[in-house]
């Protein structure tokens, strides 16, 4: 079974290779390969998740090199859940893209597979430098996806996006090499084992290296003040690309959660940087919530909401409470699914507002990509009383309502459950301690305030789009466009119903992250597979 851990990397790589070899006009075949690969990826991730949940973390040694020397892939509950989330969102985005967006440029299915490969590798690797390599793969694919469809606004956003990420990669390398220089290892588990000893030499250099590394991850996670690249890029990206980019910020959060728990959960370096993560996370969430309030376009608001959820997660990591982290890991899943669905929905709404009645003729780059001026809501508000609402309008409306309530975190939706788990865990033990009580109060008020601001912003957009936009033709929606959105929202309702087992999984994942021993032992004790003895008669021929 541990051999399956390498499949989420190999599968999309092979599929992308095949797709590049196929001629550009064989788009249907490429889409079929992509869909098969994505479906298989979902099944593999599900199998991995079920396996590690019952058997504990598994390690795969790439090239069969023993642990501190070669690269190891390790899958535990957190990695497997992130893999499943990535592949499910990938499937939804690919299905949506197959309706029309894949025709906007070349190599869309191949780039999409490479994106999934980079994401899977980043979640699986147990080696910091290998993490850098997979970050570069996913970034290179994301540059291609961002530029998909071309056009001035996308190219303009790409210049800043690429430049920002190249700088972040340089910062990442500085952090990695500083840590290697001090500790002499790049394997995360061995690093954790070396740093948990009673005394650590050159701890200031390790602190500096970890802080530099954290800056690189926080740039990916779009933490303030390093997040101004995100909204222009996500707004300009084609909707299926933006939908998969919703996972991209979570990679930064994942890397922080992984490394901070491994390096600084316990031992002489315990708690390094937690206050900084807490403060920057909360600041990010609050400012992004105001960003939602300040913008008029739905896709811009959704981009800001991605930053809100990333900031909340970083702050939850900064509390250093294992139970808060468990709630945060649960919150991560529905909040990412909701923003993915909302990015897809925003495209349908934009096309509807632009008045496109034929899907084929809809432009790939509308003039509406520019920020709209303020409009007075009362002027063009035509009453809709007594007019039948066509089914497609109802679908858009209900899907929008679902996305908005999910992003804002309303009961009984799973984002609410995640927030409730985080806040009750943060407030619960804090009653005795004054400092912890103040921190918990600040955390709770910022998280609740973000939910309120998000709700106000999204309801305002909803009213303007659905209630005051009278006289429009009903939207034309294809099944391939409606199904992913409905499926993603359905997934969130499943999470509400199955909240018990899922929450248990999240808390177990957080406990084993905090405990570390399970992961460290699984990686360090991974055995090299000895090659079987050659059968008789096939031994090396005498010279």
């Amino acid at each position, binding site marked *: 079974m541990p051999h399956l851990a390498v499949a989420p990397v190999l599968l999309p790589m092979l599929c992308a290779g095949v797709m590049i070899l196929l001629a550009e006009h064989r788009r249907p075949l490429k889409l079929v390969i992509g869909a098969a690969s994505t479906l298989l990826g979902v099944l593999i991730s599900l199998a991995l998740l079920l396996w590690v949940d019952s058997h504990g973390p598994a390690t795969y040694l790439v090239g069969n090199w023993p642990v501190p020397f070669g690269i190891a892939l390790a899958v535990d509950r957190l990695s497997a859940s992130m893999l499943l989330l990535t592949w499910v969102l990938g499937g939804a985005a690919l299905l949506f893209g197959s309706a029309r967006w894949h025709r906007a440029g070349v190599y869309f299915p191949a780039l999409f597979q490479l994106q999934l490969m980079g994401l899977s590798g980043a979640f699986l690797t147990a080696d910091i*430098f290998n993490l850098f390599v997979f970050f570069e793969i996913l970034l*290179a694919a994301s540059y291609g996806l961002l530029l998909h469809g*071309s056009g001035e606004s996308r*190219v303009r956003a790409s210049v800043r996006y690429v*430049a920002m990420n*190249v700088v972040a*990669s340089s910062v990442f390398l500085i952090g990695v090499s500083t840590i*290697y220089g001090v500790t002499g290892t790049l394997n995360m588990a061995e690093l954790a084992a070396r740093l948990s000893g009673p005394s650590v030499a050159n701890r200031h250099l390790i602190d500096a290296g970890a802080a530099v590394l954290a800056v690189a991850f926080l740039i990916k996670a779009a933490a303030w003040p390093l997040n101004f690249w995100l909204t222009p890029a996500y707004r300009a990206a084609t909707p299926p690309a933006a939908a998969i980019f919703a996972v991209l910020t979570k990679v930064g959060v994942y890397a922080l959660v992984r490394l901070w728990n491994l390096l600084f959960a316990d031992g002489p370096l315990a708690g390094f940087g937690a206050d900084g993560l807490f403060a920057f996370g909360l600041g990010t969430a609050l400012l992004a919530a105001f960003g939602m309030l300040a913008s008029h376009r739905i896709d811009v608001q959704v981009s800001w909401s991605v930053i809100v959820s990333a900031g909340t997660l970083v702050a939850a990591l900064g509390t250093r409470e294992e139970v808060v982290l468990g709630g945060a890991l649960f919150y991560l899943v529905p909040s990412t699914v909701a923003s993915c669905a909302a990015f897809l929905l925003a495209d349908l709404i934009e096309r509807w507002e632009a008045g496109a009645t034929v899907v084929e003729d809809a432009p790939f780059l509308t003039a509406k990509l520019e920020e709209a001026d303020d409009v007075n809501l009362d002027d063009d508000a035509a009453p809709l009383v007594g007019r039948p609402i066509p089914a497609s309008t109802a679908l858009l409306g209900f899907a929008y309502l679902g996305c908005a309530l999910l992003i804002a975190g309303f009961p009984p939706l799973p984002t609410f459950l995640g927030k409730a788990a985080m806040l009750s865990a943060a407030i619960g033990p804090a009653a005795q301690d004054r400092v912890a009580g103040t921190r918990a109060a600040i955390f709770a008020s910022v998280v609740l305030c973000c939910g309120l601001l998000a709700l106000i912003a999204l309801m305002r957009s909803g009213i303007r789009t659905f209630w005051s936009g009278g006289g429009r033709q009903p939207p034309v929606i294809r099944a391939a466009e409606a199904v992913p959105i409905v499926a993603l929202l359905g997934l969130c309702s499943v999470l509400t119903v199955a909240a018990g087992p899922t929450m248990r999984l999240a808390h177990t994942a957080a406990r084993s992250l905090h405990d570390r021993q399970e992961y460290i032992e699984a990686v360090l004790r991974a055995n090299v597979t000895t090659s079987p003895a050659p059968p008789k008669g096939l031994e090396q021929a005498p010279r």
Partner: protein
Amino acid sequence: MEVVLAIAIGLLTGSGVWLVLRPRTFQLVIGLSLLSYAVNLFVFSIGSLAIDKEPILVDGVTPNLTNYTDPVPQALVLTAIVIGFAMTALLLVVALASRGMTGTDHVDGTEP
């Protein structure tokens, strides 16, 4: 040797950061190149500097870091150089496309 290398890395980083903060795409590209040179030198130097010590094991010489240089940073820097070069080339293409589409070489796509 350490002092010379440290000064070189510092100069490259300083110039790189200054150029990255400039408003033209050409300055940005050159700045990022200088920054990646600095980072590559830094990664290379992290395994301690040595003269006449190759990372290839020779019979009869104890395999430790006093007789050999650390091979890992050399492997890392090779990867980093390739990736940095590819990303810079990509940025150059995007910058050219931006120049063609917006008619300006400002990073914002509009003259201030």
